């Protein structure tokens, strides 16, 4: 009797603990967002989006930092996507099983956990100095590509593994080569999963400041980049720079810039969810 009651009590306790845990994160996030909106929303305007950096908080805007962020995202996507997918296809479909494959897999998973500043230092030495790019967009986006490659590889492998083997078997049975099977059957079926992984990886890249400061992103750039060889700033650096200024107006600007960064991240996440749902409907 008491035993049953005890177990029921435990059950209830665990359920409560679960609810508390779930809401802990959500409430914290909600409080954070409410504060940011409260501080930053009145500051948001078209003028703020198209203005250059300034010493006067009321004149300053995020135009160049936002353009830098968009450039960095685009270039990172361009570099990381083909590399990531090719690596994942190789690991999933071609690599001979054995010690080599295991070591490679463990290392890729480990790379996903390396702190981003380390990638920054690597990028500084490799891209900015050895390859003589300097502190331009190319060096920055190569560095971020390295940073998110492990995430893309892991996500793509998951997506490829989820493709039913019956599809592959049917393709082979019809006489298709391995390449034809991968290109025409496996990758299209895995498309939703790959996109989800890619966009989540880019969402991580968009918030990075540390590695970009190391490879040479700047704080004051009064022009939008016109080519990958141009210098740039990005939103997280602009936010960091504003937060550490003494004038209160810059803190408000930082809040407004955070809203823009959040909108970019949320939009990308929404696209990821959208693509996944669309893909699921198709396969069902």
């Amino acid at each position, binding site marked *: 009797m008491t035993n049953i009651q005890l177990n029921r009590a435990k059950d209830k306790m665990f359920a409560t603990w679960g609810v508390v845990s779930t809401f802990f994160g959500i409430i914290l996030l909600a409080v954070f967002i409410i504060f940011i909106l409260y501080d930053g929303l009145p500051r948001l305007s078209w003028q703020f989006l198209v203005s250059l950096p*300034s010493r006067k908080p009321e004149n300053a805007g995020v135009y160049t930092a936002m*353009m830098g962020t968009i450039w960095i995202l685009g270039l990172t996507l361009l570099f990381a996507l083909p590399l990531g997918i090719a690596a994942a296809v190789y690991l999933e479909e071609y690599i001979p099983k054995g010690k080599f494959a295991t070591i490679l897999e463990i290392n890729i998973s480990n790379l996903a956990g390396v702190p981003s500043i380390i990638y920054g230092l690597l990028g500084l030495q490799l891209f900015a100095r050895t390859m003589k790019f300097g502190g331009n967009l190319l060096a920055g986006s190569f560095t971020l590509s390295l940073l998110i490659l492990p995430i893309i590889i892991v996500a793509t492998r998951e997506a490829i593994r989820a493709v039913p083997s019956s599809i592959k078997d049917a393709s082979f049975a019809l006489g298709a080569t391995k390449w034809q099977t991968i290109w025409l059957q496996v990758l299209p079926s895995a498309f939703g999963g790959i996109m989800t992984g890619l966009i989540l990886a880019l969402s991580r890249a968009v918030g990075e400041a540390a590695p970009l400061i190391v490879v040479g992103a*700047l*704080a*004051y750039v009064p*022009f939008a980049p016109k080519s990958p060889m141009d210098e740039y700033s990005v939103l997280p650096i602009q936010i960091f720079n504003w937060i550490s200024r*003494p004038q209160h107006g810059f803190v408000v600007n930082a809040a407004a810039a955070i809203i823009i960064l959040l909108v970019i991240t949320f939009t990308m996440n929404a696209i990821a969810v959208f693509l996944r749902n669309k893909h699921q409907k198709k396969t069902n």
Partner: protein
Amino acid sequence: MKSKKLLVISMLLISMLNLLSCGENQTKDNSATADKLSGSIKIDGSSTVYPITEAVAEEFRAVQSEVQITIGVSGTGGGFKKFGRGETDISNASRLIKDSEKELCKENNINYIGLEIAYDGMAVIMSPENDWVDHLTVEELKKIWQPEAQDKIKKWNQIRPNWPDKEIHLFGPGTASGTYDYFTEAIVGKSGSSRGDYTASEDDNVLVQGIKNDKYSLGFFGLAYYEENKDILKLVPIDNGKGAVLPSEATVIDGTYAPLSRPIYIYVNQTAVSRPEVVAFVNFYLNEVKTLAKEVGYIPMQDAEYDESKKIFSTFVETHKTTK
């Protein structure tokens, strides 16, 4: 449903395109001055000097919109590393160039000139509720902050017996900041040497909040942060043996607020001054910094000192031209 989403996405794309074109229009608007210069000037270095150089660059843009100036914030040390490799034209510095950095410049055949541009005052701050401290001497500050004080000097009455028998809570910038280096050098006598058991933050606004909310607090940071938070903080007058002095524009300029004020600098690469846009920018800098430094919270030097800097710079430019 699907078409709605497409619509939203395409609207987003269109607004982004709009943004692109808007920015371009803006840069075109400002181009209406004679004697056009173009080219680019690369600046990096101290985050303390950054707000001043940013202000100057912003104003320079109004007269010479085609000169593209970029400014980074790698810190004084990081800035000199790039400067010594010839990667930047001008370096912002909150201290003089070190011997190791001079060596680096020598190795890469880089000649340069350092110009004082303003003063940065450091403020010692306490909570507005603190009613027992009327001033602190440099000796007392040393007693509180030196490495030997760790775990020993923990209460206010250890500094002066008539002060409260309460724990003293210390706040200061992190060890990576130039402000920390300067404070320890001026007070303890050795740069980078202090007790470790204080609340450190790289963000001075965090220090402001910490000191404000704690009656038994004591801390230090740049004077500009005090100026912006006058109503919630209390300034400690500092006595260096000649009477207690509050930091202000007057006391920093006449040198009575010592040792907690320092000059800040820009360093200019010699090869860069063969480019007219760099010479124009530095001259503009020396002409305008007096008003602009004050506007962003720093203390300008006196006219005579700026005239002196201008002379030094023009001689530097001239000698370079003749040697070339």
